[in-house]
């Protein structure tokens, strides 16, 4: 790196460079340590017995980490069954999977039309979608809540699927549009020359070619709906048979705020799926998040 080092023999300059890098490496290491510490504390505590958690800090386990009697799965068993986190986990899946798949299907058709069909109003519709992307969803809550109450959609899965679909559509159309519009014109036109109509061009050509964009959005939308609290609180509520993991966990914080053995295990259950997605599909995850960062 430095010019002065080149005067020295090769070996000592390599060592010197390594030594110079120590503060840099130490500071990065320190930051990583700092960033991981809170989560690590939660994870470790979730496997400790109730009495141990409240009588000593979680970091004390490092004094004797192999003393196996201090570890327990009891917290998980109890939070999954008697505290309803198991049912909430199922409910979260039940909310998130359709709330990811339905908007993708609807958005893909719309994105194709906006990209490859000529019709009056096309530009206006797209401008509207760009504008709607940043509208805070708070703007929809009160009117939708009233309409849902009238229609009996409050506290139903159908209601929240549709809500997540509506709120997710602007971003979904925008993202899929930028990918679909970027496909080479020759491919689309040659399909038309071969006699394929718009529908078969779309389903046989455009959808397979846009799979990476679809995957990125799917991951973003899935995590967004899984981690969402506000929409679930407003449209689904906290009844045990419909509560999702986020609403259930926030209820537990309210009712059992000092029962750390329950809270730590419960919190970790809400994090398992996002962390799995994060580690297994990091590339799509990052791409989806970056693309989704414009959402309102």
């Amino acid at each position, binding site marked *: 790196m430095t010019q002065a080092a080149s005067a020295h023999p090769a070996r000592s300059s390599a060592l010197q460079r390594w030594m110079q890098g120590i503060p840099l490496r130490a500071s990065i290491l320190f930051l990583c340590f700092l960033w991981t510490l809170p989560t690590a504390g939660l994870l470790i505590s979730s496997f400790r017995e109730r009495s141990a958690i409240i009588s000593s800090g979680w970091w004390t386990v490092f004094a004797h980490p192999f003393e196996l009697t201090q570890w327990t799965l009891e917290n998980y068993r109890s939070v999954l069954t008697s505290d309803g986190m198991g049912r909430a986990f199922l409910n979260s*899946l*039940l909310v998130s999977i359709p709330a990811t798949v339905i908007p993708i299907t609807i958005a893909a*058709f719309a994105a194709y039309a906006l990209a490859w069909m000529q019709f009056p109003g096309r530009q206006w519709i797209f401008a509207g979608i760009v504008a709607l992307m940043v509208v805070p969803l708070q703007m*929809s809550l009160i009117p939708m809540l009233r309409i849902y109450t009238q229609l009996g959609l409050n506290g139903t899965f*159908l209601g929240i699927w549709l809500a997540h679909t509506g709120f997710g559509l602007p971003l979904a159309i925008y993202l899929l549009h930028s990918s679909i519009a970027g496909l080479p014109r020759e491919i689309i036109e040659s399909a038309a020359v071969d006699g394929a109509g718009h529908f078969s061009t779309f389903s046989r050509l455009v959808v397979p070619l846009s799979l990476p964009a679809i995957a990125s959005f799917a991951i973003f939308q899935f995590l967004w709906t899984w981690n969402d609290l506000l929409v679930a609180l407003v449209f689904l509520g906290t009844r045990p048979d419909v509560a999702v993991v986020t609403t259930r966990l926030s209820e537990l914080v309210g009712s059992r*705020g000092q029962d750390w053995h329950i809270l730590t295990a419960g919190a970790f259950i809400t994090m398992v799926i996002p962390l799995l997605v994060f580690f297994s599909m990091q590339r799509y995850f990052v791409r989806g998040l970056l693309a989704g960062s414009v959402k309102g």
Partner: protein
Amino acid sequence: MQGASTAEESSLLNSQPARILRPILGLIAIFTAFGWSTGFMRDPSAPAWQLLLVALAIGVLGVWMLFFLANDLVSRFPRVWAERIRPYIFVGPALLLLFAYLILPTLQTLYFSFLDARSQRWVGWQNYQFAFTDRTMLIAFRNNLLWLLLVTGISVSLGLVIAVLVDRVRWEPLAKSLIFLPMAISFVGAGVIWRFVYAFQPPGRPQIGLLNAIWVSLGGNPIGWLQTQPLNTFALILIMIWLQTGFCMVILSAAVKAVPHELLEAARIDGANEIEIFFQVILPYVSKTVMTVATTVVILVLKVFDIVYVMTSGQFGTEVIANRMYSEMFRFRHFGRGSALAVILLIAVIPVMIANLRSWRRAQ
């Protein structure tokens, strides 16, 4: 695909009236299925796997069939008309949902914001007057401003510094993963993680919260981080910084890597030290990305709700606008004030909306 079986089908099925009738009957069947399934899917007591199956069948296959049949029907029309109508079949369902869930409610919220608590009587600007003069609201505005300044300022600059630093070590991907990881966690989950960090036990008892344990071992008295004003607002802000720095780092890292190598080498030959290089070469080069990232964080922080709701529910002087909006809606049942607060959030993002529209038009 279109094998012998289709060709062998009786000519009756392919006669002109049948070809129009088929999609119509299909559409009727689809809508009947929609109608039946909405009844079924509204029932939360149905077994979870059945609900999921029906939802996926209707939501994917049903929607797909709807498009297919409507498209099929339109294809029977005279060609000119078919091509004129077809685009609206493709965008129609999306437009319908956007209208129902975003456009119409936005207009209604605007209207409600001038009505009273139960949306019955016109009250003029009263709700806005409340929002800008009430003492608790002023605290909420002050806190939102603090959140905006601190979260945006610190997570963007820290993210940039980390991006520049990790660029120089070989284990960069691992380091970035660890700092980016909190992005995967929900705000509620992050809330519990940090409630544990901030946990408080009376003096004399062993501190189980990391922060108080460090503080006490340094000789201090244990602090209720979430109850003590104005410390608690900063404690909440720290959570958001922890969550967002990774996001800033990842985006800025891509920008930092795009800084031309020759530029850095030239500066080094000119004798600039690393800090000068950071401020005079790297920072100007990535300034546009910094602005984009900052805007994104601003939009997110403006609507911060979950963290405050879970940690303090806005008590002890930690209120923010979005949490107050939720309380007005559910706890106080004052739809007028709730709507006015939503409108204030909307007005705050309008500059971003205009900027997005401009850059989109330029890209056209």
